[in-house]
């Protein structure tokens, strides 16, 4: 019995393959999608390599500029600052995620925690639709499955082959499994190169990508078969599936992102900086002699050194005031940037809630996480840059405090100080270091379960049709 079932599955698979080979449309679409996927991958690899090499060159140049400074006041040099350049994400070539919408470099200067600047998106002309290799998989793979699978069940019901099969004692589960295997095989034509290439670039991230895109392919295989089973005609199945494809891949992602932004909007840049100015104005800023907190700090410093007047201090009070100003500003930045990240978190949460329309927002989160191109990876980079900025300011203000007493604002430090300053370096975190978007995986799994349940309902219906 088991052998005959396996044989039936194999026969059905072979029959499906014969049907596909005869269909010129499918072959044309397959060649088109595969060729374009390969081209998008190659273009992506080239773009990611250029990004990486430009970032490395810019970092070297910036370090040389920093080291090559002549004599200067440490606070002037702190204002000149350093730049932190973001390396290309591990699998950015496959899924650039939101990297183009976020900046490449962070200017680490005194007093300001700047957001990353130099966003590639600012100089890009409008794209009609996204076109990375990942985007191609997200819409091209389902399209291929839909065109290949729409008539697999409905068409055979139409032509009467199914009835013939039931008369000959075929089991619906065997037919369904044979067709499903072939659809999965078709998906593997795109999925396998993806998994292999991603694994070569970064094994652990590649494995996650392969898993999530595998799940996504399964969702579309099951959806295609379920719609085909419930449709009266192959025309109806194709129209219905193309409608679903359109909704899930073209309309829903944009609709969901826009709706999430309307429900949980980000503060405007104007409001963001106004809030920071308000926070800073309420405390010491390092430049204002009239500030009450400055007076308190001076009093504490005088007490600590056991002297009565600022002139009697053995160190430069300006350096201490600068550092205190930095530390106060740091608390203000922590609050405001914390709110900004929280707002992005809320948008992500809303995108997942609205993922009832399509599995794509959930896949998008998982894919960007695995590729290292989501905003959380960007936050990791921005936080590291900010830690470095604070360390650099502490270093420069420390020097000003120790050596700035004698010459006041005319104090000039030499190149040896710049060479001794902490040097920026950044390593992109491995996948395990970043919080896994488990909610997105749960949504994707729920989609698979729901579609699977619909398919089982279709199979039961087919079994009733097949029973004498």
């Amino acid at each position, binding site marked *: 019995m088991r052998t005959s079932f396996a044989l039936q599955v194999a026969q059905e698979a072979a029959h499906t393959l014969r049907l596909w080979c005869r269909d010129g449309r499918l072959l044309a679409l397959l060649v088109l999608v595969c060729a374009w996927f390969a081209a998008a991958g190659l273009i992506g690899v080239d773009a990611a390599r250029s990004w990486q090499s430009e970032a490395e060159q810019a970092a070297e140049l910036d370090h040389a500029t920093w080291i090559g400074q002549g004599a200067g006041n440490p606070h002037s040099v702190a204002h000149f600052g350093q730049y932190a350049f973001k390396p290309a994400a591990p699998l950015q070539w496959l899924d650039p995620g939101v990297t183009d919408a976020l900046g490449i470099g962070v200017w680490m200067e005194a007093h300001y925690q700047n957001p990353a600047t130099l966003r590639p998106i600012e100089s890009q002309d409008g794209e009609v639709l996204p076109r990375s290799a990942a985007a191609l998989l997200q819409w091209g793979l389902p399209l291929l499955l839909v065109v290949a699978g729409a008539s697999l069940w409905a068409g055979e019901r139409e032509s009467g082959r199914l009835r013939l099969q039931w008369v000959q004692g075929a089991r619906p589960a065997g037919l369904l499994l044979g067709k499903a295997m072939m659809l999965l095989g078709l998906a593997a034509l795109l999925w396998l190169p993806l998994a292999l290439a991603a694994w070569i670039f970064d094994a652990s991230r590649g494995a996650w990508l392969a898993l999530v895109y595998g799940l996504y392919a399964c969702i579309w295989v099951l959806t295609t078969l379920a719609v085909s089973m419930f449709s009266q005609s192959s025309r109806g199945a*194709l129209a219905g599936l193309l409608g679903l494809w359109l909704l899930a891949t073209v309309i829903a992602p944009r609709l969901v992102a826009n709706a999430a932004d309307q429900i949980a909007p*980000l503060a405007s840049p104007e409001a963001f900086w106004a809030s920071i100015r308000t926070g800073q104005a309420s405390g010491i800023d390092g430049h204002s002699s009239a500030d009450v907190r400055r007076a308190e700090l001076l009093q504490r410093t005088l007490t600590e050194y056991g002297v009565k007047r600022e002139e009697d201090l053995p160190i430069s009070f300006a350096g201490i005031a600068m550092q205190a100003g930095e530390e106060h500003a740091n608390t203000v930045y922590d609050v405001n940037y914390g709110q900004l990240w929280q707002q992005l978190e809320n948008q992500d949460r809303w995108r997942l809630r609205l993922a009832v329309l399509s599995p794509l927002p959930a896949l998008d989160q998982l894919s960007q996480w695995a590729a290292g191109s989501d905003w959380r990876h960007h936050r990791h980079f921005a936080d590291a840059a900010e830690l470095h900025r604070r360390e650099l300011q502490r270093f420069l203000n420390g020097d000003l405090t120790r050596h700035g007493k004698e010459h006041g604002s005319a104090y000039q430090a030499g190149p040896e100080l710049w060479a001794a300053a902490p040097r920026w370096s950044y390593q992109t975190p491995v996948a395990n270091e970043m919080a896994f978007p488990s909610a997105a995986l749960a949504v994707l799994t729920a989609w698979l379960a729901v579609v699977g349940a619909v398919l089982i309902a279709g199979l039961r219906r087919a079994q009733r049709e097949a029973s004498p």
Partner: protein
Amino acid sequence: MNHWIFELRLLARDRGARLVLIGWIALLSYAGYGGWNAVQVLRVDQARFVEAAAHERSAERERMAAVEAGSAPADAYVGFPSILRSPVLLPVPALAALDLGLLDRANLTLRVSLFNGPQQSAKGRELQSPLLLSTGRFDLGFVAIVLLPLALLALLFAQPGDDRGDGRLPLLAAQTPLSALYLRRHVVRMLALLLSLAAISAATALAAGGVAALTGWLLWIAPMLGWAMLWSGACALLGSRTSSSATALAWLVTLWVALLWLLPAALDTLASRLAPSPTALSLLGAERAAAQEGQRRRDELFDVYVSDHPELSVETAQDALAWTRRYYVQQRFIAEAMAPPRAAAESRQAAHRQLRGQLLWLSPAQALTAASERTAGVDLASVSRFMTAADAHKQAWDDALFRPLLAGRTLGTAELDRLPRFVAPPTVAAASTALMLFVQLSMLALLLWLAARWRVLAARN
């Protein structure tokens, strides 16, 4: 019964068509609301910016008036030229409610001062939602360019495939010329989609910009009409030449993928390869090196500047604000040092845009996107015009203020009132682009209709 009324009834009886129309109107309504809402949000932000700038100016004026009247002690900082800032603003165009284009990533509000040009004052404004920027806006431009062909496809792909499948085609061919029959059907279905697009887009333009926006709206909708006609022609051609409606649908979807996805991607890749545009990082190194050199040679540069400009009265004393005079000269040095690399980058960028602009005419979807953004005043050219005007304003601001700065004196209220104010450049009407695109798309649609094989179809059946 009148043929047109018959077609209308046929459309009304078609359950699938009803579903498509309901979905279409729902998406249009959401896109219209989204565009209008985005424009309102931007306008509220701009109003806050204008209010804050006005508050800043009036507070400074009050301080200056108090010093002038002698009711407040003289203060070197009050009315000091480098403290004054001028607001620079690109008003949100009303038609941005139809197509937001680059507005959500461009810097529309800037503050120009002696030390900061438009580019520098944009610092720290990169805080828009990356999720939204990378996905794109769901506005009427997106619906009209990307979804309108699909809605048309859904209404037209089965013409005449279904009639042939049902065996009705010979009867129909005997009663009336097939080309006239299907032309009526196409027109009725196209109008059902286009009228709703026209109504909702006109309402959105009216809500965002009043009656004055309607002329621009006409220019915006005209190429969309041509776009719809082109897809109707494609449906007619493929429908008349394929054996079944399912085959026609598969080919039409492939055509949509090719025109909306593959062709734009291929042309952009070609433009980037043939005329690469400079990357965001390319100018930074030169700018940092110039800034460093300027800082290192600040005193020397200032001395040279003073000796080179005997006509200026330059205060060289080391007072508390002496650094501002040196800093201004340093900024001029950086601007001069950056002029050649910036010009080179701009020339590369211009070459890229020129090539891309020429290639756009091969890709109807991109040509439409460009025309829609241009008509709405939200394209790269409009933003560039604004930045050029902002640069000119910065120059005027510098011309008015650098003499008092170098002389180390403060301004009075009369001088403050005479300072130049920024005037946004007028939007450039894109009538010729829009109308030319409409004509080209319509001609192409006509060719497709003429290539349809209605006679052969009638004869065969």
